């Protein structure tokens, strides 16, 4: 048995040999889709140029994934020998040059571009003590590295990173960098133990639940697949991240594909599968490219393929692309799509763990779930389950976006409160506005009002509040967002994505949408509200698959928490958030209007009249409520009511 450990030792030694010497100055530049969109490629080029121009052989430019601090991208970090790593934000070509000349050459920090306060970087000692959940990560190079590097910087310092442990630290296209941080140690432990049953038990002890949204216990799922009498079994990684507002799967696959691959190999071993599929959205070309590269590298190193480490265990991985159908995130629809069919769901049971791909037992796990698996094996299930709540172990990654100061990826222990995520790590709402609600779970979730801000976030607590965990999309809404309009937005989405197989979803969502359109255009009645609620409950009960069953959630949760807003639309014909165009009115305050004629000139329907230097008037009958006059007026004379 020692043989397997020896092989890993050899792999480790190889990786360590390739690791950069500590005397080298390292510049890390992010390279995920969002980083590239903010201009990281140009920044990397600038550094490359500078290295050549200054002939700096001891400076190395490293390409890494995404640290998750999206609104400050491109992020650049500089590590000098014996010094604390310094992180810069919103770097462009010019700043990159400055960093090179002043920080790298002369040791003067470029203070105006630092991420966080300069005092963090001017000391070599760590200032932040580990939180109780972070303490569980200490002692493992795999999970502690992130804390060591980023632990003092606000936004990162209160996160507990397990799934995102390597994101932003390693080069996503380098196997040896992954291995040098205890990569594939998890697989090594599993193969050395040679007891698949034990692996499944560990996952159960870890209290790991499906991160894709359903929250089904992963250990139980694996156990069910193991029980099958069928010999051929499959593992599928669900990377069809269709939820608008969620992007952690993309970021993970682009920043650390190896951990997901290792998770899949362990899953394959545990359930007795020899083949696994990645089902990735075609909208994520970079993720597809990196996963394919990672698979090829693993093949070369004998970590995939036949007889892995001489254990007789064979495992192959293949990528299948999605093609832009939201319903394919539903597991039976996903199976049909991999089989090359229209992605329509079917009734369950039989569940995929009994009859899945080509009628064989199939375990479908989400990207984030799989990324946790190697960490559980290395840090041990009993340490993993100390993080999180009594019923749900570990952390959850949230994609924080919308009206919040610090947008990006946030990984916190299960049971953390919404307040901590939105106001603590997220830094609150911009422009001094008030928080109205937090939308979780995408089109299948709901709106959580301010009143539940202190509720610990977990699968069960969110369900009790009328939303769902979903894949972790978290969109923050402020007072300018209309609850009815948001419900309508999601219904347009689900109505369009309804596959058409069952009538409750196909027809029900359409009728619900019609009612919502009536309400937002000012033609709603009280009877509409009653019908909307009845219909929503019916669609929820009678639909075939998860998409239909969850489609009414945005409507039901807004009816529950924001009923007075619906009533304002229906009874007073007024949109309190001033969002629904048909219900707002633009008027010119004659006291403030100076008669500059700017509004009259910009009006597309020419419905504003008035003499120069005299107050103007809007003809309400002709006004199309485009808001052009409101936006152009410099004297705040145009009022929106």
């Amino acid at each position: 048995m020692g043989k397997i450990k020896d092989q890993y030792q050899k792999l480790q030694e190889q990786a360590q040999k390739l690791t950069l010497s500590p005397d080298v100055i390292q510049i890390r530049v992010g390279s995920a889709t969002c980083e590239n969109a903010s201009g990281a490629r140009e920044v990397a080029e600038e550094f490359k140029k500078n290295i050549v121009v200054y002939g700096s052989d001891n400076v190395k430019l490293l390409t890494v994934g995404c640290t998750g601090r999206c609104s400050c991208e491109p992020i650049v970090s500089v590590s000098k020998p014996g010094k604390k790593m310094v992180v810069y934000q919103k770097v462009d070509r010019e700043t990159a040059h400055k960093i090179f000349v002043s920080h790298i050459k002369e040791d003067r920090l470029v203070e105006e571009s630092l991420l966080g306060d300069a005092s963090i970087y001017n000391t070599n000692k760590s200032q932040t003590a580990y939180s109780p959940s972070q303490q569980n990560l200490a002692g493992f190079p795999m999970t502690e590295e992130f804390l060591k590097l980023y632990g003092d910087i606000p936004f990162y310092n209160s996160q507990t990173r397990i799934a995102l442990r390597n994101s932003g630290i390693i080069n996503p296209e380098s196997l040896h960098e992954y291995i040098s941080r205890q990569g594939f140690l998890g697989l090594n432990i599993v193969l050395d133990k040679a007891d698949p049953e034990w692996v499944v038990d560990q996952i159960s002890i870890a209290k790991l639940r499906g991160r894709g949204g359903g929250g089904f216990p992963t250990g139980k799922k694996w156990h069910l697949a193991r029980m099958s009498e069928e010999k051929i079994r499959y593992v599928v990684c669900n990377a069809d991240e269709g939820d608008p507002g969620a992007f952690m799967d993309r970021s993970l696959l682009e920043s650390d594909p190896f951990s997901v691959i290792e998770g899949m190999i362990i899953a394959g071993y545990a359930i007795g599968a020899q083949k696994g599929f990645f089902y990735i959205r075609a909208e994520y070309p970079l993720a597809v490219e990196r996963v394919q590269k990672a698979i090829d590298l693993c093949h070369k190193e004998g970590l995939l393929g036949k007889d892995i480490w001489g254990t007789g265990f064979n495992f192959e991985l293949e990528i299948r692309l999605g093609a832009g159908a939201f319903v394919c995130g539903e597991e039976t629809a996903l199976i049909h799509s991999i089989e090359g069919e229209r992605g329509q769901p079917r009734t369950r049971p039989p569940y995929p763990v009994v009859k899945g791909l080509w009628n064989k037992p199939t375990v479908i796990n989400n990207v984030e779930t799989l990324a946790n698996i190697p960490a559980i094996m290395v840090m041990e299930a009993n340490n993993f389950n100390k993080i999180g709540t009594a019923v749900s172990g570990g952390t959850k990654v949230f994609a924080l976006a919308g009206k919040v100061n610090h947008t990006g990826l946030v990984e916190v222990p299960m049971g953390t409160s919404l307040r901590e995520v939105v106001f603590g790590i997220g830094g609150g709402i911009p422009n001094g506005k008030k928080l109205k609600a937090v939308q979780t779970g995408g089109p299948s979730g709901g709106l959580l009002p301010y009143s539940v801000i202190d509720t610990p976030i977990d699968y069960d607590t969110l369900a009790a509040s009328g939303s769902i965990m979903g894949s972790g999309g978290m969109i923050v809404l402020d007072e300018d967002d209309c609850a009815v309009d948001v419900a309508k937005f999601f219904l347009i989405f689900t109505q369009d994505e309804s596959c058409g197989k069952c009538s409750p979803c196909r027809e029900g969502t359409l009728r619900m949408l019609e009612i919502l359109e009536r309400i937002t255009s000012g033609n709603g009645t009280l009877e509409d509200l009653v019908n909307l609620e009845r219909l929503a409950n019916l669609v929820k009960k009678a639909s075939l698959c998860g998409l239909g069953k969850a489609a009414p959630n945005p409507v039901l949760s807004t009816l529950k928490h924001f009923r007075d807003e619906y009533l304002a639309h229906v009874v007073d014909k007024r949109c309190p958030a001033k969002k629904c165009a048909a219900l707002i009115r633009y008027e010119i305050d004659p006291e403030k209007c100076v008669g500059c004629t700017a509004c009259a000139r910009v009006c597309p329907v020419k419905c504003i009249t008035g003499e120069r230097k005299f107050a103007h008037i809007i003809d309400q009958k002709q006004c199309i409520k485009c808001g052009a006059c409101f936006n152009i007026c410099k004297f705040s004379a145009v009022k929106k009511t």
Partner: protein
Amino acid sequence: MNNNLKNVCCSGDCSKNEKDCIEASRDLFPENILKFIEQCLKDEHPNSQLITVLHKVQDHFGYLSPQTMDAVAYLMQIPAAKVSGVASFYHYFRLKPCGKHVISVCLGTACYVNGAEAVLKKFSEELGIKEGETTHDGMFTLEIARCLGACALAPVVKIGDDIHSQVTPDKVPFIISSCLKK
């Protein structure tokens, strides 16, 4: 468009036999696609690669025409009805030709609450086309994307492989003119 695209296949009303049809289908596709299909046919589940093949065809031609879909059907030995059934089910597959620059305005939740609708409207006004349409000169196609997964930079617009972040309506004319320079 390639002249070969015409008359590749029968809709049951020509006199060609199946062998000729398969030959004609082969002529349509470049070597890499033909090779991939051949590979698939040796697979344990050849039909399961249909979506992958359609992706490759769309990458090459820009869209899926009835002719190319029929050719896929012949080469993969899958009923043509199923091929078009699959192609029309998925949003990602385009059944009409598209312009040189495909502009996808993301209307995911984060983009929506951050004002993507106004951006879409501005593109529509500037280009004189609605979503799903292509300009007369064949330069631009305007599309709506569900979510491009760059939510933290909302609102985003994807043109070709580039993602433009934090787009506002007043940036739109500049974005369009920078495309024209390419």
